[in-house]
C-alpha cells in the first residue's frame, strides 16, 4: 500500500512534489488563492502529511483555474497545475464529497455534450448544467441577450464520425 504522497507523485510522473521548499511563489502568483480553503503550497504539505480526505475534499483543487502561473514560476519545477489535475481525478475516483460540487457538474455536462455530438452545442450544454446544478436563473438575462444577438446558436454542426469520438471516451474512461 503506497502512501498518499507516493500515489500523487507516481501519477504526476515528474519532479517529486516534496522538492517544494515553500517559498510560496505559487501562492503569491495564484489568481484564485484568495478564494481557496488551502493555499497551493499548503496542499503540498498536506499531501506529505497524508491528509488524503481533507485534500481530496477541498475547494482548492477545484477552484484552481489551471492558469499554470505556479508551475511556470516554481524554482523547483514542481508541476503544481498537474498535481491539481491529478488530485481532481483522484477525488472523482474515490467518490469523496467534493468541495465544489457545481464545478464537477459543469465538467460532467461539458464532457457529456462532447460525447453526444462531438462538438459543444452551447444551449444544450448550458441547460444540462443548469438542471444538474439547480442554479437555474443566474445569467438568464445575459444568455437571452447573447441569443438575441446571434452569439449563441440553437443548432450547431456536429461531428459525423461519432463512432471514433465515443471510442475515445470508452477507451479512456475509468
Amino acid at each position: 500500500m503506497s502512501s498518499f504522497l507516493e500515489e500523487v507523485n507516481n501519477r504526476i510522473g515528474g519532479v517529486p512534489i516534496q522538492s517544494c521548499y515553500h517559498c510560496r511563489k505559487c501562492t503569491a502568483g495564484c489568481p484564485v488563492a484568495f478564494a481557496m480553503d488551502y493555499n497551493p503550497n499548503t496542499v503540498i504539505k498536506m499531501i506529505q502529511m497524508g491528509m488524503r480526505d481533507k485534500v481530496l475534499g477541498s475547494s482548492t483543487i477545484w477552484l484552481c483555474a489551471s492558469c499554470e502561473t505556479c508551475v511556470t514560476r516554481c524554482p523547483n519545477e514542481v508541476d503544481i497545475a498537474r498535481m491539481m489535475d491529478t488530485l481532481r481525478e483522484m477525488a472523482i475516483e474515490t467518490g469523496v464529497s467534493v468541495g465544489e460540487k457545481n464545478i464537477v457538474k459543469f465538467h460532467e455536462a461539458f464532457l457529456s455534450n462532447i460525447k453526444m455530438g462531438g462538438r459543444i452545442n452551447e444551449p444544450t450544454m448550458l441547460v444540462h448544467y443548469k438542471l444538474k446544478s439547480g442554479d437555474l436563473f443566474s445569467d438568464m438575462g445575459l444568455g437571452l441577450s447573447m441569443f438575441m444577438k446571434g452569439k449563441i446558436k440553437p443548432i450547431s454542426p456536429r461531428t459525423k464520425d461519432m463512432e471514433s469520438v465515443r471510442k475515445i471516451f470508452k477507451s479512456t474512461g475509468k
Partner: protein
Amino acid sequence: MKAVSRALGIELQEVDDWSCCGASSAHMTNFKLSVALPARNIIAAQKDNNRDMMVPCAACFNRFKSAQYHLEGDDALKAEVEGIIGAKYDASVSVRNPIDIIYNYVGLEELGKTVTRKLDGLKPVSYYGCLLLRPPEVCQFDDYENPYMMDGIMSVLGANARNWSCKTDCCGGSLTLTNTQIVVHLVDKLMMMATEAGANCIVTACPICFANLDTRASEKGRLPAFYFTELIALALGLKGTEEWFKMHNVDPRPLLASLGLL
C-alpha cells in the same frame, strides 16, 4: 478570423470532421482523454500534408500543444492513443496560434502595407491571459512573462498600445459559469489596471478571455474588449466589422464612432 486570413493571403482549410478538444473539463478530470481528444484532430490534419494548424482559441491551442508535448515525450502513451484512434501520430503538424502566424509569417511590414485606416486614438492594452503562453516549454510562444507580439501588431495598425503589467494575468475563464463572483473580481481588477494604464479598450487573442472581459465586468468600469483580428479588420477596412461589434455585450461602437473609426 476568416475575413482577415483572406485579406492577408492565408489560405485556410477546415480540419476534416473535427471534434472538441475537451478543454478544461477533460484535463481536469481525465488526463488520457485530454490527450486523445486533441490527438484525433491533429491526426486528421496530417492527412492532407498540412504543415501548420491555425488554432484561434487559446484554450484549444493550449490543449493541442499539450497533447503534442505528451505524445512526443511518452512512447507508451503515444502507442495507446494511436491504438484508440486507429492511426499514427507523425509529429508533422505545427500547431500555431494566429498572432504567431500574423507576426512571424505575414510579418509586421507586410501587415502595415495592407492598412487603409490607421486606428488613431485607439489605446488598447494587449491581454494574452494564460493559455497562449503557459507553461512555456509546452506553448513555445512569445515572451511568457512580458509578451510583445500583440503590441507590435497594434502599433502597425496605428493604435497606441499602452504598457501595463497584467498581460498574462488570469481572468478565471473556466470558472465563469460555476463561480461567477471570482471571475467578476478578476475581470474588475483587469479593467481597473487597464484604465490606470490609460487604455480605452482591451484587445485579446483568446475567445474565452474575450467573453469574460465582455460579459463579467461589474458596473465599476467596463472597457470594450476586442478579439485582435476585429481590430485588424477595422484597420484593413474590411466589410462587416460593424455587424461583429453589434454582437458585443459592451458595445464598442460609441468609442469607435467618437474616434471617427466607424
